[in-house]
């Protein structure tokens, strides 16, 4: 993890990075238009969206029913299920499982859950090397970098930068890049293919996540564009899948809804190129050993929050990132989590709590413009949850932590703001006071500074201040038609 500066500082640094902004702007604007077109093709999109939200809500309400059913089905199909309450437990389980195979290398399918728990670092501490095989994850890994997007972790990089990273670092991790590597997509893809093939053919252990888990049959589902994930899922002898408990869907019929919602929202495709499903183990085909690690890590706590729980519907399509004007300027790293953008701003403070300055600043990383809600295929009202979490930050209140109802205190550093807003609310509730203030402001027109002191500087550094008019609307009304319906209240 990078140093955890609060969002505004990290974002301000990113805003100043012209190349980063250009890369992000180009990438997000291209996909935005495509998504809109792909979604517009389906006349029943709004119904599908409502169905997706309803299925997720119902399943989440009955996790205590569907998770045991899933466990039964996975076990019956020859897999083994492990339950992990938090990141540390999940990492320990995976480390032990890999150790038991005697291997020191694993190949990985791109997975948000393993990023969330920091699995690669945990494996490295035990002398086990994890090779990322998703193209964008590979770029991030070779560049000693962090992912900055859910779907396209290397979105902040352009082709020239990728070429340089490949040429410089591939040799340290396996087969080096070809001599004289250029920066065309074909050359870059070929270099990655050759480098990765070695890994696929030698690895004995694969580690993955899953987009969905079907409870009725115990089936895991991964949707992807490159096919690299499918190689990792089928070639190794042992497969370990780490999946958040919220990914379960009851039946294949339910899955059908999400297989329509996800690709159009995420890559603007009608159907994703590779959909892999695996159910336990099968003789003579695929891994001989299959382990499923079911990850909680704050999810059931979030479920206890009636407003915040909708974040668990998320199918990680990344549409909200691609339309977010804040993400576009701040970049993914400013969010300090595996989950950047609007969904990160509401998921991270629920999974990790609001205890650190960074996590407490995330609910404010939004202008509440609502573009994220508009595109979300499972209709998560992200602005509603943001405001709800802001309340948690400034007022504290009841939350569930590790299954226990607890009262948390307001975050520090909001005392002046709290006083100011309380004073404003009081003045607004006493129109006489408000009027006196307006008149005072108008009368002292000459004295108004052009630049504000203190926190107000943040406004006046880039924006001129408006002139305060000599007469408020209220006074104009009173002067011109005071007789009618304007009985002043104290």
């Amino acid at each position, binding site marked *: 993890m990078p140093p955890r500066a609060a969002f505004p500082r990290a*974002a301000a640094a990113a805003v100043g990075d012209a190349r980063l902004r250009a890369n992000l702007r180009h990438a997000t604007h291209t996909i935005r238009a495509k998504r809109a077109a792909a979604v517009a093709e389906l006349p029943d999109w709004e119904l599908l969206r409502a169905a997706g939200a309803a299925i997720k809500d119902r399943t989440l309400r009955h996790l205590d029913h569907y998770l045991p059913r899933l466990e039964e089905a996975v076990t019956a199909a020859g897999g083994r299920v492990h339950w992990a309450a938090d990141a540390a437990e999940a990492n320990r389980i995976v480390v032990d499982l890999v150790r038991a195979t005697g291997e020191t290398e694993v190949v990985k399918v791109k997975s948000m859950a393993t990023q969330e728990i920091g699995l690669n670092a945990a494996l490295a501490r035990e002398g086990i090397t994890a090779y990322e095989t998703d193209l964008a994850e590979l770029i991030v890994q070779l560049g000693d970098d962090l992912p900055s997007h859910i779907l396209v972790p290397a979105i902040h990089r352009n082709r020239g930068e990728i070429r340089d990273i490949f040429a410089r670092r591939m040799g340290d991790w396996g087969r080096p890049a070809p001599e004289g590597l250029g920066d065309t997509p074909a050359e870059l893809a070929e270099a990655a293919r050759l480098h990765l093939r070695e890994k696929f053919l030698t690895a004995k252990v694969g580690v993955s996540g899953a987009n969905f888990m079907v409870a009725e049959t115990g089936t895991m589902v991964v949707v992807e564009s490159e096919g690299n994930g499918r190689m990792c899922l089928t070639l190794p002898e042992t497969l370990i899948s780490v999946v958040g408990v919220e990914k379960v869907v009851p039946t294949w019929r339910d899955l059908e809804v999400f297989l329509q919602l996800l690709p159009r929202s995420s890559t603007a495709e009608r159907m994703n190129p590779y959909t892999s499903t695996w159910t336990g183990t099968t003789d003579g085909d695929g891994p001989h050993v299959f382990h499923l690690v079911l990850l909680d890590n704050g999810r059931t706590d979030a479920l206890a929050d009636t407003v915040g729980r909708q974040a668990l519907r998320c199918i990680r399509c990344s549409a909200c990132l691609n339309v977010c004007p804040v993400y576009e300027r701040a970049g993914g790293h400013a969010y300090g989590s595996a989950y950047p953008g609007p969904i990160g701003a509401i998921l991270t403070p629920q999974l990790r709590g609001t205890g650190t300055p960074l996590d407490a600043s995330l609910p404010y990383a939004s202008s509440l*413009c609502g573009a994220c809600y508009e595109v979300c295929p499972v209709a998560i009202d992200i602005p509603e949850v943001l405001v709800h979490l*802001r309340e948690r930050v400034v007022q504290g209140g009841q939350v569930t932590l590790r299954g226990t109802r607890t009262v948390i205190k307001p975050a520090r550093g909001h005392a002046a703001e709290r006083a100011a807003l309380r004073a404003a609310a009081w003045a607004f*509730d006493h129109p006489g006071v*408000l009027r006196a203030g307006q008149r005072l402001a108008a009368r002292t027109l000459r004295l108004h500074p052009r630049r504000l002191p203190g926190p107000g500087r943040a406004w006046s550094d880039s924006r001129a201040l408006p002139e305060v008019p000599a007469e*408020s*609307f209220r006074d104009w009304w009173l002067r011109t038609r005071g007789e009618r319906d304007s009985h002043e209240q104290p």
Partner: protein
Amino acid sequence: MRVALFVTCVNDTLYPRTGRAVVTLLERLGVEVDFPAAQSCCGQPQYNTGYRHQAEPLVRRYAAAFRGYDYVVTPSGSCAAMVRDNYPRIGARAAAEGRGRELTEAAESAVPKTYELTEFLVDVLRVTDVGAYFPHTVTYHPTCHGLRLLGLRDRPRRLLAAVRGLKLVELPGAEECCGFGGTFAVKNAAVSAAMGADKARHIAATGAETVCTVDNSCRLHIGGTLARRGSPVRPVHLAEILASTEGDIW
């Protein structure tokens, strides 16, 4: 017809011309306008910053000030959205916290009669040509809350298109947030300013003399950004354009 004007705190204090324009316009259309003086702020700054409890007295005040009116008209998309989307939530949360249904009822009573100006003109009065004259090139910035929370759609454009003398030019990236966002403008000043700069650049690219919004809080941010960059483009509220006539150019 008699309606109550909810002028909003920003307009009352910083943009009284907008309130006067609404009065002029509605009266010209034969509507009788009242200004209940007990009104104040809708509570959006408090609510959106996380101080829900501080917004509660303002919900009560709003409901009381406009009791007895069939229509409340406001020249602010975001304040109308605050009343319509968030008042019921504030009421429901208070009830869930065991504080009775009084606030819920107050909140809900306010919702059905609150109209943003262009909704009132197009949906209630059923006019798009309000007899306005405004001889300028105008570009329109649809503010986020009007666009996404209220779903104003093409109402403002239709009203603008019917104004005599007015040339409407398209704004590139029109539906992107200008970066205001209430306290966001101060809490995340760098990102807000970057968004504002892009908006100002797009506005300049249209060659318009005037940029029009239906929300003066966005106008405050856009106008301040344009002014700091030395741009001659003038920001105005749609009501001020609609109030303007040949005999009385605003």
